[in-house]
């Protein structure tokens, strides 16, 4: 533990955070194509997660009224997941999708083979819509 490091909580000094391997631990359990477990979803129907070196990219397809809507491919930030899943430390991804009229702050993590996505949607237009949160589940379809 290096006490010269800045911290605002004891967890910031967790020794694993200084391990270079932490960033890429178990990334394989996120990479690939994922389909919504709800075939009638009104949200994101499909997710694809890619990795290039240490960089991650997320593509999404939203359910549209006249067909699928491709979301912009966005770079994701890999975060060490300090929770252990099935005895193994994994990573989570944080990604923001910017549509101009709306920003979707999203995080993704795999839990027991299921991809869990939580979206915080914040409207930037003057439509009067409420910002909202939504959580959906996906299964792997490589």
């Amino acid at each position: 533990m290096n006490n010269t490091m800045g911290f605002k909580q004891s967890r910031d000094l967790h020794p694993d955070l200084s391990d270079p391997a932490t960033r890429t631990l178990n990334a394989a359990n996120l990479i690939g194509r994922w389909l919504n477990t709800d075939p009638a979803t009104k949200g994101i129907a499909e997710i694809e997660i890619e990795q290039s070196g240490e960089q991650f990219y997320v593509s999404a397809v939203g359910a549209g009224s006249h067909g699928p809507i491709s979301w912009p491919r966005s770079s994701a930030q890999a975060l060490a997941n300090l929770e252990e899943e099935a005895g193994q430390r994994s990573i989570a991804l944080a990604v923001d999708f910017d549509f101009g009229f709306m920003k979707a702050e999203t995080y993704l993590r795999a839990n027991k083979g299921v991809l869990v996505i939580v979206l915080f949607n914040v409207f930037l237009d003057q439509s009067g819509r409420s910002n909202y949160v939504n959580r959906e589940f996906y299964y792997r379809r490589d």
Partner: protein
Amino acid sequence: MQFAQIRDLVEITPETAGPIAADFLIGTWINSNPDTTGIARMVMSEAGGKLTLQTFAIGPDDLIDWGTTNVTVVASSAASREGAGFTCVYDLGFAETRLQGMIMKGLLVLAQFQTFKDDSGRAGYFVREYYALDHGRF
């Protein structure tokens, strides 16, 4: 109306327009884990129609006060006016923390995204913890 998914498409009428109710968020939220090494307590306050959050985290000797930040309240859908959670950001200088809270069965499920801005080489991290509203009745 622009949308990225069908659930963004809602009709807003004068009857359904208005701010998101967030009374349920106001108060002191206590971490369910007495051994946490992260955020121990959060105090949500309202003033002038705006919500603010003050956060206290576990330090080596005592709680560390992160100060106060503004909060964006979210509902469970684009048409709802009932609050379901919040999001906010703390700039801690050496690091930035995004907090995303969701209410589930009376518990606040808090996701914390910590990214370091200093040259310590530490990996950013994600953690999820559970908080109960201190009702002061027992």
